[in-house]
């Protein structure tokens, strides 16, 4: 699946802006962005549900609408199961199977795969959110496709549901399927994704291997002291990146010991809080989204230290 300069303008609101990236065969691509960042719109454009204003999103070089029996090429789970609440999961899947020329035995297979066989005859309207997600995943798997497009598969799920989906995605990835999986939580995808595509306000801010992001999980230190101004100035002289929050500083690039020494040297004390922790994926996301904005280039994650120096 390749996105090439894809743009979507909803009557003056640009939801996706000149987006380009690839989903490579046999790899899991995490698609990360805040709510409203343009993930769902991008996926829908690739699946022929939303028409791009400019650019193209192609699957094996063809538009989704030009694929022969697309269910057997791409499986998609968007916005829940898309089933009438008065219909059973089995009937819902059988309708899709019939239209796609897929046998009913495959319906039973995918129901078993998502562990829903026992409840397959019940009406979808009575299902929990987790069960609905399972129906959606079963629909995506029905054609046994090589490529899966899953939009926020863990949203709204309880911890056992999240764990279950994580295990399923890992298993599917192990089968060699390509996947594009979106989430607004970068950390959610860290266990299954090989590649991370991060967008913010419709623009690409990073398209990078997961390993590169893991490398960036540097230590950050939170500091609360008497004189934040003096402390920040001293820390920045040492090359640290200092983020000024309401009642504390967030510092990257120095250890807690170095920061303590600096506070002491600049007479910014006393220290009320000095907390060292490893940066979360969310920290990385905010760092990228906040500093790069629309000027980000594909595959180019700037170095925090270099930015501080500039």
């Amino acid at each position, binding site marked *: 699946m390749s996105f090439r300069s894809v743009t979507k303008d909803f009557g003056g609101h640009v939801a996706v802006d000149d987006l380009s990236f690839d989903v490579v065969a046999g790899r899991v691509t995490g698609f990360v962005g805040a709510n409203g960042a343009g993930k769902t719109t991008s996926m*829908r454009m690739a699946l022929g*549900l939303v028409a791009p204003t400019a650019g193209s999103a192609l699957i094996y070089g063809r538009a989704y609408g030009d694929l022969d029996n697309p269910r057997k090429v791409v499986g998609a789970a968007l916005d829940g199961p*898309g089933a*009438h609440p*008065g219909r*059973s999961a089995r*009937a819902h899947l059988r309708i*899709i199977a*019939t239209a796609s020329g897929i046998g009913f035995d495959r319906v039973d297979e995918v129901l078993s795969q998502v562990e829903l066989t026992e409840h397959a005859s019940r009406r979808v309207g009575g299902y929990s959110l987790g069960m609905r997600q399972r129906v959606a995943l079963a629909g995506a798997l029905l054609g046994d496709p090589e490529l899966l497009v899953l939009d926020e598969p863990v949203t709204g799920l309880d911890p056992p549901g999240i764990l279950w989906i994580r295990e399923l995605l890992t298993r599917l990835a192990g089968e060699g399927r390509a996947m594009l999986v979106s989430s607004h939580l970068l950390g959610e995808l860290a266990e299954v994704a090989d590649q991370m595509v991060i967008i913010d306000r419709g623009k690409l801010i990073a398209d990078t291997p997961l390993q590169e992001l893991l490398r960036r999980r540097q230590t950050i230190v939170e500091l609360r002291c008497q004189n934040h101004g003096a402390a920040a100035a001293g820390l920045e002289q040492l090359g640290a990146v200092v983020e000024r929050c309401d009642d504390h500083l967030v510092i990257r690039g120095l250890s807690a010991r170095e920061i303590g020494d600096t506070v002491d040297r600049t007479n910014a004390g006393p220290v009320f809080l000095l907390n060292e922790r490893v940066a979360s994926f969310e920290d990385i996301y905010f760092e990228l989204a906040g500093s790069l904005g629309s000027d980000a280039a594909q595959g180019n994650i700037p170095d925090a230290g270099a930015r501080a120096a500039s």
Partner: protein
Amino acid sequence: MNALARAEWLRIRSTPTYWWLLLGTVAIGVLGTLAPLIAAKDNSASALLTEQRLREAMHGAAAGSMLVVVAGIIGMAGEWRFGQVTQAFLTTPKRRRVMTTKLLSHVLLGAVFGLVAAIATLATAWIWYRSEGVALPIGRTAVWLTLFGCVAVAMMFGALGIAVGAITRNPVTGIVGALVWLVVVEQTLFAASRSVFRWLPGMASMSLRRQPADGLLAMAPAAFVLATAISALLLVGLWFVERDDVTG
């Protein structure tokens, strides 16, 4: 197209609303037949066998066919209600094919509803007439042509429902809009000027169903008017369906 048609029938059969509408069609067919018979003051054999009374007795089939419009609107607009349209277009990205399949399926469904309404009407009228000691003259034009017209209108109303559903893509708006137009707006306009407003599609359908009302078009021009109006609405609906993004 065959696979898509089979899937559409499976969808229809597994949607509880359709079964309720079919039940409603039977109920309306029975009540619509009984109402004029009960209301009539003269139920003598000679009165029951007049052209006017026979057409009134077959009225139930006409009323029953109205529910086909609702079925068609649900069949099309209902796809947008629970996100089913996403699944439909993921399976069949050519939206024109999806709409064509729905159109043909609901025309066929209209035939089923129309026949069920006709059978309910005939059975009710037959029992009533027999209780009055009169044999229902099924061979009379007033009976079979009225029932034939009701079935034909039910088939066309299936298509009308698909057209309205494609335009509104909201079942409630579609159903309320269609029923208010057919039952209130057209009737009011027709009462104001019969010669002008008999050309409206709802009035044309009344002519096809051989409703006992003066001033309606003849059956042939009525069929042409109704078919033309539905075709135009279908084209508008198709334009909307093919043009608009599916965002949820």
